[in-house]
């Protein structure tokens, strides 16, 4: 019994097993890369869903962990080398299990476009957070030229939990909020829209549209009406100086290009910053738009370990190489 255990242990810590498992991964990757374009992406998906892939990964994990621990034990006698190699080796020791656990245990929610006052409910949990405010990625009044970046700032939002605590969430890095990490994935402008049939208001509210970068066309419709409304934000004015020109945008009162399509026929194309008459009866009006964001909410206890492992690996590469060179020189 003891000898069987010893043989299993010897097998698990052998360099040959590392070579075979790496070779197997390379064979898989090469074969997949020839016949499909997303070989590595597919591998990551398999790692979180396919038991065969999980099995091979766990075998590799135990092999590498045993070998790293043995290496650290060997290095203990030469303290300088131990210290120099420790960050990289510990980084690797953390990286492999953190990646596996993170991939398999992570719960993710991508909210629909949300704005001020909306509630974000954590996936598979009871935590709820209300959006107090959205920090826009665009200046409310701006002068933009041809090569301007899509956004002026990284967007963000302020959240409020039921106990009255507030959290600021930006785009990167993700912020810890309760048991989750949150960050803003994208930002947009939701025009305030009112559709009136005669004196009756058919619809009034904000519509989350992708109108950035300015000029982007997005579309919305209303189930009660046979129209499709294509919108884009156009400059409120254009300033020209010689050959140079720049556009001014006022996001408190943006100017829209509106195209209305009925049964594949364009029935109206016009520009407005207030309202536009579509037919004898129907009017489309705009009021001050609201900002919206899509938030990614992630429950992952292993994310800090994963990030820490990457930091340790990055930090540890140079001292590791230095230690290898030093040991070689000392051997000579």
């Amino acid at each position, binding site marked *: 019994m003891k000898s069987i255990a010893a043989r299993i242990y010897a097998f698990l810590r052998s360099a*040959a097993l590392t070579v075979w498992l790496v070779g197997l991964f390379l064979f898989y990757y090469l074969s997949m890369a*020839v016949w499909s*374009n997303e070989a590595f992406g597919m591998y990551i998906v398999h790692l979180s869903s396919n038991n065969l892939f999980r099995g091979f990964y766990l075998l590799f994990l135990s092999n590498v962990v045993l070998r790293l621990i043995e290496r650290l034990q060997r290095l203990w006698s030469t303290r300088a080398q131990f210290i120099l190699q420790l960050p990289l080796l510990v980084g690797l020791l953390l990286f492999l299990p953190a990646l596996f656990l993170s991939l398999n245990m992570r719960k993710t929610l991508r909210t629909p476009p949300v704005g001020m006052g909306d509630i974000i409910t954590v996936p598979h949990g009871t935590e709820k957070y209300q959006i107090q405010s959205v920090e826009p990625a665009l200046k409310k009044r701006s002068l933009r030229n041809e090569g301007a970046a*899509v956004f002026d700032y*990284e967007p963000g939002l302020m959240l409020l939990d039921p106990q009255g605590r507030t959290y600021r969430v930006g*785009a990167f890095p993700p912020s810890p909020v309760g048991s989750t990490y949150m960050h803003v994935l994208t930002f947009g402008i939701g025009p305030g829209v009112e559709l009136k049939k005669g004196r009756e208001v058919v619809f009034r509210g904000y519509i989350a549209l992708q109108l950035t970068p300015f000029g982007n*066309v997005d*579309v919305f419709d209303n189930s009660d009406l046979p129209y499709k409304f294509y919108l884009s934000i156009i400059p409120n004015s254009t300033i020209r100086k010689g050959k140079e020109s720049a556009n001014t945008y006022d996001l408190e009162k943006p100017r829209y290009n509106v195209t209305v399509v009925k049964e594949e026929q*364009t029935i109206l*194309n016009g520009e407005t910053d207030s309202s536009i008459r579509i037919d004898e009866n129907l009017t489309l009006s705009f009021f001050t738009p609201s900002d919206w964001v899509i938030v990614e909410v992630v429950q992952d206890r292993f994310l800090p370990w994963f990030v820490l492992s990457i930091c340790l690996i990055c930090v540890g590469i140079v001292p590791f190489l230095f230690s290898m060179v030093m040991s070689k020189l000392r051997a000579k």
Partner: protein
Amino acid sequence: MSRFVLEALFIGAKEGVKLSFCTLLVFSLLSGRERLPLKRSVIAGLLVVFLASFLLLTLPVTFEMREIIVRMIGYVFGIFFFLSIGALFHESGTDIIGPFRSVGGKRVLQIPILLVLTIGYFAPDMAGSALFIADLASMAQAPMPVFLASGLGFVLFIAGTAALGRKVQPVFPRLFGLPQVLLTLALIKLLAGGIRGFAELTLIPAVQAGLMKLVHDVIHQTFVMILVPDHPVLSTTTWNFVGFLFRETAGLWLSLILLVTPLVLFVIKHFREPLRYPGSIDRPSQRRMFIRSIRDQRLLKSLPVLFFLAVIIMTWFSQQDAPGVSLYLPDPKPVAADGDALNIPIQSPTEDLRDGAIHKFSLLIRDEQVRLLIMKKPDGTLTACLDACEICPPDGYGQSREHVVCLYCKTPIPFDTVGKPGGCNPIPLPTVVTDKEVRLTMKDISEKWVLVKSGASKTTVK
């Protein structure tokens, strides 16, 4: 001599040199009467390859089949490279065969393995070159001289290399063990695996593109794991920091490191392996001689590896544009649709869409300028796309030597993947290519453009 005949002669000569040198190399491993069945297995494999290549010329070959042949060449390079690394580590003391040693030594296994490896190694190159020569013959006014030139080049250089090889073959066993042979076969494939005549001699750009894709994917997946959003949302400072890893230079360096690290580790391990004397050597002078012979042997066996490393490092960056060389950015030419049809002539007095450069066109849809991009891919097909991708703002693309490059995020897109959807690739458009024009419909262009502008196409990425 016409250009077609000259090119056919060159391809024939190249394949002849490759085939004879590789065969000599393999035969140097298989010397001795007891290994005759293995030699026969190699010869049988070569015969199968010849027959298959001739047979292929009689069959209708689609672009997809050509694409598969090109991919197979890269695949075989990868297989031989990794086999050689495994064998190198086995030779330098890491026993990776273990309990399979007794099975691996059996002829009944060795003969079919060698047959499969021979066919796998030579078949894609021979098939690709045969098809290219058939293309040259069809383009030339008289096809027969093209076939004769390629056959002549092939036979003459086989005979020449074989004659020369016999003189140097005795040196081979000192330089080449099994791992070195496998590595040299991989190197030959890398340097002479191109099958598009003068236009593409080596496989290096394809291997670079493959490795850079791996590096790019690993970085991308890591960013997804640590919750980095799409780059337009990030501040310029953050994107400048993380985007460094997506640049072509970073990809090239990282892929080079990926390729050479195992070989460097082998060389280090090979020379650091402790020397053990046989028990029968007890005199110090004999010991010194033994040590010297082992060291000489190690040095000689390392030479092919060092040569591989030197060639890779020297050629890796020479394939790329010199730093600072700007991208090719043609001005879009205005075109107008005829109703729903947009027909763009393949050849006009000012341009030819088949010249390998990107061609841009602009048209108005609802008073908005939409740009199209048309280019001839390495497989000879013309592809039309929007000059925009699913991820970035629609700044469009420029052209470098081996890639089209997204002007917003600088992601390099290999030519052969243009026309395929996804990621930062230009968004493909349904296209009909006739002998005179590229035919598109305004409906398709308009639908795709609306998706780009609305950001709806991003949902497919997410």
